[in-house]
């Protein structure tokens, strides 16, 4: 009897003595709740990245550029000058030292990336324009377009990789040679599994300034694991790619590659 009372009393006293801890525990629990809530909620509040748009456009490798630039392009910019020599590249060097890469790009024309939405229609005529990007699929006002184009639209009728139709949604990337090198490098590593010709996958990756790749993944599966993996491997083995051209002003270049 008295034992039971003692028990109760003891519990009470213990509870009383513990109150501050209880408070802190409660506070902690609440704050944890808030924290978890915030963590869960915040990403949703952040703007979701814009969906990739696939705009089939013709890409004309620079090699085939027998055409003038489309009139829509800003004209006559100063030829890029080598950047001013800030830190003189070494006083008395036995070896010349290349300048360290600069963040600033004074050589760049202050050009606005005119983001006109490209026509969502595949074109079949050749010679969209000089720049793989930059040129939205408007008929080339020059009339010179397609001078070297083949019937497939490929200016490289006899090129190593046959016709290349590509979708660009980047009006800023105007370097035909780069696209050529990129495709040719991946091409050299592409071992197609023996599957039907219809099979294709879309691989996406990002090229960093130094030419290394990140975010390599299958954007659209072919439905065949072996094909997807072979495509990923081709890109992986082909990298690193050339460093991004100096005049390209972004830190990286996202690429969606249709592999078939």
């Amino acid at each position, binding site marked *: 009897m008295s034992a039971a009372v003692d028990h109760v009393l003891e519990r009470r006293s213990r509870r009383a003595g513990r109150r501050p801890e209880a408070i802190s525990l409660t506070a902690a629990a609440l704050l944890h709740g808030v924290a978890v809530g915030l963590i869960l909620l915040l990403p949703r509040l952040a703007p979701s990245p814009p969906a990739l748009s696939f705009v089939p456009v013709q890409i004309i490798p620079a090699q085939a550029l027998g055409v003038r630039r489309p009139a829509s392009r800003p004209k006559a910019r100063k030829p890029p000058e*080598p950047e001013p*020599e800030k830190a003189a590249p070494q006083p008395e060097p036995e*070896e010349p030292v290349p300048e360290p890469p600069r963040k600033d790009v004074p050589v760049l024309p202050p050009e606005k990336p005119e983001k006109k939405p490209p026509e969502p229609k595949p074109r079949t005529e050749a010679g969209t324009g000089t720049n793989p990007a930059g040129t939205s699929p408007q008929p080339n006002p020059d009339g010179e377009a397609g001078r070297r184009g083949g019937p497939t639209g490929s200016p490289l009728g006899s*090129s190593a990789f046959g016709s290349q139709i590509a979708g660009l*949604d980047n009006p800023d990337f105007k370097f035909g*040679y780069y696209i050529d090198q990129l495709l040719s490098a*991946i091409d050299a590593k592409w071992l197609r599994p023996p599957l039907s010709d219809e099979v294709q996958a879309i691989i996406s990756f990002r090229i960093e300034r130094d030419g290394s790749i990140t975010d390599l993944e299958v954007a659209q599966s072919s439905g065949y694991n072996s094909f997807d993996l072979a495509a990923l491997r081709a890109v992986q083995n082909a990298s690193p790619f050339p460093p991004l051209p100096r005049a390209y002003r972004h830190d990286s270049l996202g690429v969606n590659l249709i592999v078939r």
Partner: protein
Amino acid sequence: MRPRNVALTVLSCLLLLALVLAAQQPPAPAPPPDEQQPPQVTLELNRGGQARKIKLAFPAFRGPGQMAGDAGKAGRELEETVRRDLDLSGYFEIQGPDVLSGLALTGDVQQDLAAYRSTGNEVLLLGDVRTEGDRIVFEGRVLDLGSGQAVLAKRYKGPFTVSRRMAHTFADEVIRFLTGKVGIALSSIAFSSDRTGNKEIYVMDYDGADQRRITGHRSTSMSPAWSPGGGALAYTSFFNGPPGIYFADLASGKKRPVVASGSLNTSPSFSPDGRRIAFARSLDGNIEIFLADADGGGLRRLTNSNAIDTNPAWSPKGGEIAFTSSRAGNPHLYLMDAEGANQRRLTFDGAYNDGAAWSPDGDLVAYTSRREGAFQIAVTNVGTLETAVLTSGPGENESPTFSPDGRKIAFTSRRSGRKQIYVMDLDGGNLRQITTEGNNDLADWSRSVPEK
């Protein structure tokens, strides 16, 4: 007690708040550079083919033509070296001043883009050379001819004497930007030559320029092997009696023995980490493969056969050593793990295969193979054992070594009379002789190009 608990509570609250804030921090600035959301390019990859050459317009540099004396000489050498480096690389189809002179150029680059393109060029290389006192200043630029925009722009400055090195540096930079590959214009080839009457070790630029003597033992010194970093050579020399392995530091010129005991030590090959050297060694007449630390310690035997085992070549990834053994009767190439285990035969064709050299990616081994009575350069794929013979005809073609980019092979040939060093593409094409003085052989191409 109680105040302390309260304090604890407050503290823990603050801590949690801090945690929450910290957790909040990264996501907040994460999506910010969104205004410049890097754009995406969609490309289509169709199917196989081989690398196409980049069409490069290379008009005369501005400057060298108007410069006199040493400056003019340095400027012209710089221009010629850049052009030659790019040409030798095999990546480009170059249109020089001779071709471009047919174009109607205004001199204003942006106005001339179409003219340059009209003959098929994709990119344009412009060079500008001038002097500042006793210095040469070189600005090199590459423009994309489609957009007229800069692919790269570099400026170099230094004494006249470094003009070739400036040119090599710039050429490799052009190659890196246009192809993504590492150029070899700054690589070197070590070899032995008897041009002074004694066989000594020499080093030259990859194109044969600037040949300089490294040893002066007035004896027989041969089979140089580059350290992985390119700062030192190991080699064999007889100057102290029985042949020993020696180490030469190129910067200081200092030399020291690695292993010189026993009756014979030859054919050194560095491990890829540079810490050990594999070589052929004999104590009693039977030659076996041994390992030693680069300082000569840790001597260890790897092979143990009654036959001759010699000419080790450490694989670029470090796991394997290729070597020559006559254990099957005739000399053939074998592979073993770097610990000496798992010894297996690599070549089966012909009756004589010797002098293995690895490709930089470790896929191929090149070697000297006797075919129909003549020595030829052969290449075997280590994975598939597929073999190709790259040279033909008389001339004793031997002792191959791969360029650091794996696209070329240097080797010794007697086709012009004396032993000379030649360079060819991996398919046997583009053969060029790069030595002329005395007999030159046993070349070793530096493995890496000094980092920029």
